[in-house]
């Protein structure tokens, strides 16, 4: 019996070793692809016709959707940021998803809103709508007041209401750069294959300085180490993870904080799913599934130069909640669409994107966390050689550091937003430190998501982020009370 147990443990150690090697090979491949693609994209930006298009009435009208619940501290900033975008035909729809902090009253008084009773066609079923508000001063602003139903429900409601052929979903705690929308919409005009969804880069708002609704100075947050770790993480994720996947038309996630969709495509698939805690990922997978099954040509794009600034959590508790939710959403999505995995009918989505998500993104925290327990135990019980144990640990940390520093290098050769020398050195330092402690903590939170999934504790965990007023914490993003 003991011999079998020992064999299993040794086998597990080998498995972890091979799995780790396999994951790193995949990451290296993606990094190489991203490096080539991003440099090519930068060259393309030089002759992209943004300036020609930004004032053209020929550009398709776009509705910016801002789902919001209890966002009274930041909602005005978000609305103003959306209304002042460099884009010719814009409509802004704010959905108050049953706020309890007086957000609606504040909006009514700030914009002198008047109630109207428009015809509500619930093409996608949502929780009841309580009222619509508009103002003659800003004819392209509409506020919808509805019962709480979650972020997905609020977005679906806005899809029902909006009249534009394209919608851009923005989180209430995010700020878009002025030309973010025109940069996102340009592929629509130029692509021969219909672009049904596209997303841009999400960057960390913490630490930046803003004037009105514009980010004027970009610096690393001084007080929050956790926010700095997340900056490195976001750079790595957006500058090489998604760029690499986009090159293969395999992106399964477009960040919910900033995404752009063809309205007809959203209606074709029945809008956002309200039963998933990571509705953005589930939607994209469903889009791939629908269009591939129907054999309709389509593209889902990730573009690396339109930028949306968003706040990130600054406490371990809130960050843990966020990461658990993201991972839980991924597990839910994979489970729901498991028939796609290794299914040649879905092309590269079935043969690469879904297996990559399952075997690299989804189960990695599970194996990593188990590895953190089993490998040291194996060492203490003398089942593995101490030298191998230490060498393997060093290799794991070194490769993590390499990926982080490469993310920073990509930022340096591309957008160079953190202009201070001290910020560059700090970023590099955080890129190293991130792999000692922070990464392991992240794995633990993501590991917890498996328990939540297995024991049916599937609910949206509220994430409080630091608002504009430092004395107050607020509940960010829309969440369901159900």
């Amino acid at each position, binding site marked *: 019996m003991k011999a079998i147990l020992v064999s299993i443990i040794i086998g597990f150690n080998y498995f972890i070793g091979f799995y780790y090697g396999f994951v790193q090979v995949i990451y290296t491949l993606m990094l190489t692809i991203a490096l080539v693609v991003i440099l090519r994209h930068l060259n393309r930006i030089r002759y992209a*016709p943004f300036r020609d298009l930004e004032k*053209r009435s020929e550009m398709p009208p776009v509705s910016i959707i801002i789902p919001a619940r209890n966002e009274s501290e930041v909602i005005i900033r978000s609305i103003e940021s959306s209304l002042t975008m460099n884009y010719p035909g814009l409509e802004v729809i704010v959905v108050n998803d049953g706020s309890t902090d007086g957000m609606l009253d504040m909006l009514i008084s700030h914009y002198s809103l008047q109630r109207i009773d428009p015809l*509500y066609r619930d093409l996608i079923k949502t929780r009841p709508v*309580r009222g619509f508000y508009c103002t003659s001063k800003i004819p392209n602003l509409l506020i919808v007041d509805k019962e709480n139903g979650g972020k997905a429900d609020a977005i679906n409601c806005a899809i029902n209401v909006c009249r534009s052929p394209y919608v851009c979903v923005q989180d209430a705690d995010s700020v878009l750069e002025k030309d973010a929308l025109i940069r996102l919409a340009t592929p629509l005009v130029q692509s*021969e294959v219909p672009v049904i969804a596209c997303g841009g880069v999400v960057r960390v708002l913490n630490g930046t300085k803003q004037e009105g609704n514009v980010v004027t100075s970009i610096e690393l947050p001084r007080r929050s180490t956790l926010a700095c770790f997340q900056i490195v993480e976001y750079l790595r994720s957006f500058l090489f993870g998604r760029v690499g996947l986009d090159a293969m038309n395999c992106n399964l996630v477009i960040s919910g904080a900033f995404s752009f969709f063809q309205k007809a495509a959203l209606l074709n698939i029945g809008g956002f799913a309200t039963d998933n805690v990571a509705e953005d990922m589930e939607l994209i997978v469903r889009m791939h599934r629908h269009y591939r099954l129907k054999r309709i040509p389509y593209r889902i794009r990730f573009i690396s130069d339109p930028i949306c600034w968003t706040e990130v959590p600054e406490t371990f508790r809130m960050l843990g909640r966020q990461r658990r939710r993201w991972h839980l959403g991924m597990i839910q999505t994979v489970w729901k669409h498991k028939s796609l995995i290794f299914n040649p009918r879905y092309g590269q989505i079935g043969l690469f994107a879904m297996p990559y998500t399952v075997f690299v993104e989804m189960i990695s925290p599970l194996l990593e966390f188990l590895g953190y327990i089993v490998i040291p135990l194996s060492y203490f019980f003398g089942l593995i050689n101490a030298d191998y144990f230490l060498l393997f640990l060093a*290799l794991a940390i070194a490769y993590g550091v390499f990926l982080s*520093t490469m993310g920073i290098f990509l930022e*340096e050769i591309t957008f160079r937003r953190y202009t201070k020398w001290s910020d560059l050195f700090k970023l590099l330092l955080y890129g190293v430190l991130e792999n000692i402690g922070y990464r392991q903590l992240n794995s633990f939170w993501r590991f917890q998501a498996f328990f939540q999934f297995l024991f049916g504790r599937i609910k949206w965990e509220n994430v409080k982020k630091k608002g504009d007023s430092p004395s107050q914490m607020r509940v960010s993003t829309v969440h369901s009370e159900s």
Partner: protein
Amino acid sequence: MTISQLFLISFIIFIFFLILTSIMASICRRVWNKRRYEKLDLLRELLRPALRDSIATGSIDAFTRDTKIPAGSLKWEALEQILLEMCEGVEQKTETLKLFQALGYVQYYQKQLSGRSSSIKLSATADKLGKIGDPSAIPFLVQLLQHKESEVVTVAFRSLCRIGSTEALSGVLTALPALLKGGKVTAKAIQTSLLLFGPWAGEPFLKYAAHKDDPEVLSVMIETLIAYPISPEMFQFALSRLSHPNAEVRAKALKLLARHDMRQASFPYNPQIFQPLLKDPVWYVRLQLARTIETLRCDQYIEMLKKLVLDRQWQVRDAATASLINTGEESIDAFLELLETEDRFAKEGISEAVQRTGYKTRLIEWLGGVDLQQKFKALRMMTMMDRAGFPTPMREAIEAGCIGPELSKELAEVPQTGGAV
């Protein structure tokens, strides 16, 4: 030490080497960029006044004779940036073009075009030639329209449009049918690029479109013409395309007629020409018709809009309602008549449009006014809207004190149902 341990150690050392390389690369890149941009800024500061002076004093030849710049150097880049900035101003266009030629930029990029194979490099060079605007680049750019990469073709097309000469126009229009057929450039990209030609191109575009029957070409050309100054020929051309067998062409022709300046121009036409389109089988033609007849205010346009408000397609109903709202006071009788019908969708559509567009403010004003007829009509309309589940205007009118006690009593019997929920 075993071989596998040695292998692991060497792999770790290799990764550390990669980490150091990426860190050093980040730092070196920043240092290099900082120096480069400092030099560029300095060169621009030095060259800009010298260049301006030479243009102002007419001594371009002396400037080019004294300025010998190796192609691709920083100075070359700085000068190019200044010249491109100057190019954007109409007054200095001729001088900057002369400078581009004399300093060898045009020849350099033309040579680059023939030697390059990467689609990004070709596109970047084509874009530069378009921005420089030298007509001698036209044959090179026209040749690029045959390229297999759609990216290159799109940029070459835009550059030709940016150059904006008659030769460029001819090159672009000759290639247009094949480009649309081959799907190498999207219709939207063509349309936004064609506008770069400027106002003078309206007439040749119209002549070109008048001789074309290909629906794809016609649609793009009609859509482009919308941005050009109106003329009787343009108006007649649009009218003549209303009976085209292709629905998109019919819709685009209606869109061209719906330009806001068409009503003021008041070109003569047969008012019956729009009648057959009321029964057009394609909904977006009817939708566009609703907008056009409101713009032109043709004979019986209110009657026609009333028919369109009862259309089976909601988009058409909404467009017709919006058009009726735009017609102003005269629409109230039409609305009252439509609100009396059994068509629930039409009633709801009207009620919504009345609120969204601010027409309700006008209704409340009428209700509080002295004109009894208007007062009665406004009250009737609000009552019907309330019955259709749109009570807000009525509530607001009561709050504003527009409704006296005798009317309020009468209104109390009207069911106050919620609209949105």
